[in-house]
């Protein structure tokens, strides 16, 4: 939970992020392709297309952080 007092006393800024525009996508791609950020640790499971339902079930139960479906 966010501590409002800490926000106030330390004059912190909280930024929400809903989605990404084209420029954000390109920046994220640059970060990943240059190796500065590696999102692969987020990928906990891999599934074939036939198992898409299972991927979502694991994600729903919180057992999968990020599953990759590989058709």
């Amino acid at each position, binding site marked *: 939970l966010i501590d409002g007092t800490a926000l106030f006393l330390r004059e912190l800024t909280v930024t929400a992020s809903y*989605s990404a525009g084209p420029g*954000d996508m390109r920046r*994220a791609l640059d970060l990943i392709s240059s190796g500065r950020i*590696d999102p692969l640790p987020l*990928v906990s499971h891999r599934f074939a297309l036939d198992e898409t339902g299972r991927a979502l079930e694991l*994600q729903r139960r919180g057992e999968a952080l*990020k599953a*990759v479906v590989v*058709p």
Partner: protein
Amino acid sequence: VKAAVLHGPEDLRVQDVPEPDGEVIVTVQAATTCGTDVKMWRHGHPALQPYPCRFGHETAGVRVDTGERVLVSDSVACGACDPCRAGRAQICRDPTWVLGGFAERIAAPAGALHPIPGERPCTRSRAAATRPTSPCSAAVRWG
């Protein structure tokens, strides 16, 4: 082509569907799952087409026409609403959604595609995971 199709809440079937028809056809190499996919699967979602419909919005693949590796954005911003005109396309009020990544092939507007540089380290799984990375990048930009 084979695709994951939603027929109703919690009714997901992987089945043959007609070849996708659209501006650019992309052979999907990787599609990551997102919390929104879980919502779409269980309860439906305003961005979905009427049932039966396809979903999956974190997609990386190869253009059928040029062979170029591409990231498929989840949407194309309208360019006309107030947020778009203010340079905040990420909160566009009227985006065109590009859904259907859980499939062998997907059709997408050219404007939704971003070339993926190089082969490594940008493997297909990393490329597909660009979509969840990009809002973080956006937050850093705006924060």
